[in-house]
């Protein structure tokens, strides 16, 4: 039979069939590509939306202000401080002896746009495609940076909480007995701690930043996967091939990783996109309530909040809404396709078209429900 390869790696026929099933879900497949493209582009946000030029040619030399800071005096100015390229005076200085290549969006997320025709928040114009917010910052620039920070936060949180969750579930399921019992009770108690209160208390003591928030959310988000992984390990530890491995003298660690974990990974991978969207929603919710990232950080939640406060500037609320809706929908579609890929029944039947309505409702419900609960739980309690 033909060898199965993917990106040059040798893969098992099972994996090959799963890839086929994933591709068969066209919507999920294209969503993945769209999401990856957006994420990849946003990784280079500094080169796309910045108030510093990408490249400057001045007096026979090249300068890249995005990467390096240059004093204004280097371009014949008066101040020793870093050049402010949005200042028409500096621009004139440079253009007298060279030229400037600007990024696509010549604004950064934290710099106010000068010389607005109307008081901020100003409506969309040719210069500010989606207008500006109430501190005269360009909305497009803030979106690009905000998208990046949301996805990076979500990804980091997802990866870390998956690692912890899978490990905890694996240990519980594999060893069982007292370890399992104590761990389970601990999780039950831990789960009942209200996350939002903790965030409130913490926000009163320190100013939360990216890493503080990540750590805090991580403390409570790792439990999602414990249940499924634990169940999978409990089931598999009495399988004959696990017994056989033990009879061969393989250590517990080898058995857990090599023989049992691959089974549990199916459940884990199926959950990942939904955990990712859940993480993003949680961060957005915290930002919206004002307990999230520090003031001035680009964030979708903060944009939503501005939309709420400035109802006379609908471009703020609408922009945040559409970006969030599209991003989360893409993730849910990807999640659905992943689930299709791991569905053993689909594995037999091959590319049977899924029933979209039912699946969407089913897939979307837990992730969204969870996030909504997370956002509303605190004030309600």
């Amino acid at each position, binding site marked *: *039979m033909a060898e199965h390869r993917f990106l040059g790696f040798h893969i098992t026929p099972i994996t090959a069939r799963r890839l086929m099933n994933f591709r068969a879900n066209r919507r999920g497949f294209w969503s993945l590509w769209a999401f990856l493209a957006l994420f990849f582009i946003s990784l280079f946000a500094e080169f796309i939306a910045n108030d510093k030029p990408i490249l400057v040619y001045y007096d026979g030399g090249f300068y890249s202000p995005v990467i390096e800071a240059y004093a204004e005096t280097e371009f014949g100015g008066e101040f020793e401080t870093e050049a402010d390229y949005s200042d028409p005076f500096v621009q004139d200085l440079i253009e007298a002896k060279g030229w400037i290549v600007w990024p696509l969006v010549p604004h950064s997320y934290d710099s106010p746009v000068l010389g607005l025709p109307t008081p901020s928040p100003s409506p969309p114009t040719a210069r500010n495609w989606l207008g500006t917010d109430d501190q005269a910052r360009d909305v497009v620039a803030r979106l690009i940076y905000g998208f990046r920070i949301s996805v990076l936060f979500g990804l980091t949180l997802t990866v870390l909480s998956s690692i912890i969750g899978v490990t905890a579930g694996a240990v519980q399921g594999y060893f069982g007995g007292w370890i399992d019992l104590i761990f389970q009770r601990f999780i039950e108690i831990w789960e009942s701690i209200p996350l939002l209160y903790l965030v409130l208390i913490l926000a009163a003591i320190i100013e939360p930043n990216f890493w503080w928030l990540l750590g805090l959310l991580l403390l409570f988000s790792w439990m999602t996967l414990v249940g499924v992984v634990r169940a999978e390990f409990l089931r598999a530890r009495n399988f*004959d091939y696990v*017994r056989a491995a033990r009879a*061969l003298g393989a250590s517990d660690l080898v058995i857990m990783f090599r023989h049992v974990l691959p089974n549990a990974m199916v459940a884990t991978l199926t959950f990942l996109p939904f955990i990712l969207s859940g993480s993003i929603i949680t961060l957005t919710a915290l930002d919206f309530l004002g307990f999230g990232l520090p003031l001035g950080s680009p964030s979708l939640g903060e944009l939503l909040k501005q939309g709420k406060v400035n109802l006379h500037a609908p471009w703020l609320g609408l922009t945040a809404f559409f970006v969030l809706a599209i991003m989360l929908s893409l993730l849910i579609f990807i999640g659905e396709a992943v689930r299709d890929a791991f569905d053993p029944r689909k594995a037999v039947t091959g590319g049977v078209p899924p029933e979209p309505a039912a699946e969407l409702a089913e897939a979307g419900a837990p992730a969204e429900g969870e996030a909504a609960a997370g956002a509303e739980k605190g004030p309600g309690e």
Partner: protein
Amino acid sequence: MTATPLLQVRDLAVSFDLPEGEVKAVRGISFDIAKGETLGLVGESGSGKTVTALSILQLLPYPLARHPGGSILFHGQEIIGASEEVLRRIRGDRIAMIFQEPITSLNPVHTIEKQVNETLIVHKGLVPKAARKRTLELLRLVGLDDAEQRLGAFPHELSGGQRQRVMIAMALANDPDLLIADEPTTAVDVTIQAQILELLKELRAKLGMALLLITHDLRIVRKMADRMCVMKDGEIVESGPTEAVFGRPQHPYTRHLFAAEPKGRPASPEADAPVVMSTRDFKIWFPIKAGLLRRTVGHVRAVDGVTLTVREGQTVGVVGESGSGKTSLALGLLRLISSRGPIVLEGRDIQGWRSRQLRPLRREMQIVFQDPFGSLSPRLSVGEIVGEGLKVHRIGDAGEREALIVSALEEVGLDPETRHRYPHEFSGGQRQRIAIARAMVLKPRFVVLDEPTSALDMSVQAQIIDLLRALQARHKLAYLFISHDLKVVRALADEIIVIRAGRVVEHGPAEAIFENPKDPYTQALMAAAFELEAVETGAVSI
């Protein structure tokens, strides 16, 4: 026999449309079943027996499966393409079916009463009270003892034989004209098998229904069926009255099936061969915990005082019904579950050794499991599976390991190229060979064979037995052979321990026990295994 048969199958074909292409599971078979007749459908796994049965009830996964041609007439009515309403009236009412696995065929969250009642309420429109009365009648009819108490029991509280009886009761609930029994006894012990067959025979006579009996076991067909059909690759290669087929098999495949019984006798080891594994008064007790503080209030004596010695080149057979403690004994001897009593492997008592200390010795004792589908990790290639032990024990470098894997695969009769493939691509017999290769690659001294043949087809069983015997002769292996199948044990073991509820009931040389079983329990086992007779001595529990 009446003029128009009860069921008429003509040129029935079944195809499955899989991504890999069309699979023709059944290719144009024809047979009749008259009222009150028993037809045996025989064939190895994958021959299309079950697909045939399911298509009679139209229970195949349509539209993935389709019938390119043929017709099935039941009471002269066409079943293929019949409306759901017509089918519902037939299914479970006129034609009932019992399946191989009683544990998965019963819903674990409902009581026995509820499950049997359901059929009655759906098809007969009985009110719950009347249904309960009828349910009790049925359970008594199928010989479930203490039927009244069992009404509230859940499936997991019953033994395999009892579950199968409940399944039969459900099938009989509406006095069907035809009962389809798909390998009804494969999953139960030999003694239970004899009882179930007895019951089916009795019920057929009492209720005058026809029986379509699907099995791979020729002895069952010979005992039960009036006529038989032999299936191979979706075709019926031979059919006729049972005695005629057995007397003068025409088709070479039929003759091949008849010749497939495990044959041969074990080679006797020398009397002074060194002892490889021995134990005295070996015990495995599982504590029963109760109360708030989980105090131990008693023990389940899974293995209770077994003494045995296995010499180089010798096979000791451990025989008993399921639940008798055979597998616990094996796992205990390999130190995979905790036990009490000395475990002497090559002169060293390994009882109580710590796992790190024990690891180097794991090379010398290996195990082959019953289910070749469950014992191979589905995500590892054959080469990785066989080579795992080598890796664990750090034997050789990558190249040497590869060579050892190749030679182990060759030794068990597999193409070495198979090491790049994955378990799901292999048949049951091939998988069992892979499992044997995994054990053999470490060059063990002591091998536990835990029912290595009971999940396999007859003809494959014989091949695996021959392979095991050859390997034993070549490497002077000591085998502990666990089985409930006495035919297989006879072909391999030269010493036998009969075990019941954890205790040894008879122990001695194989020949002596087979010639002259002393204990009534052993006698009952023999009768069930060789004559398929249920012995009413009370020695065998239901």
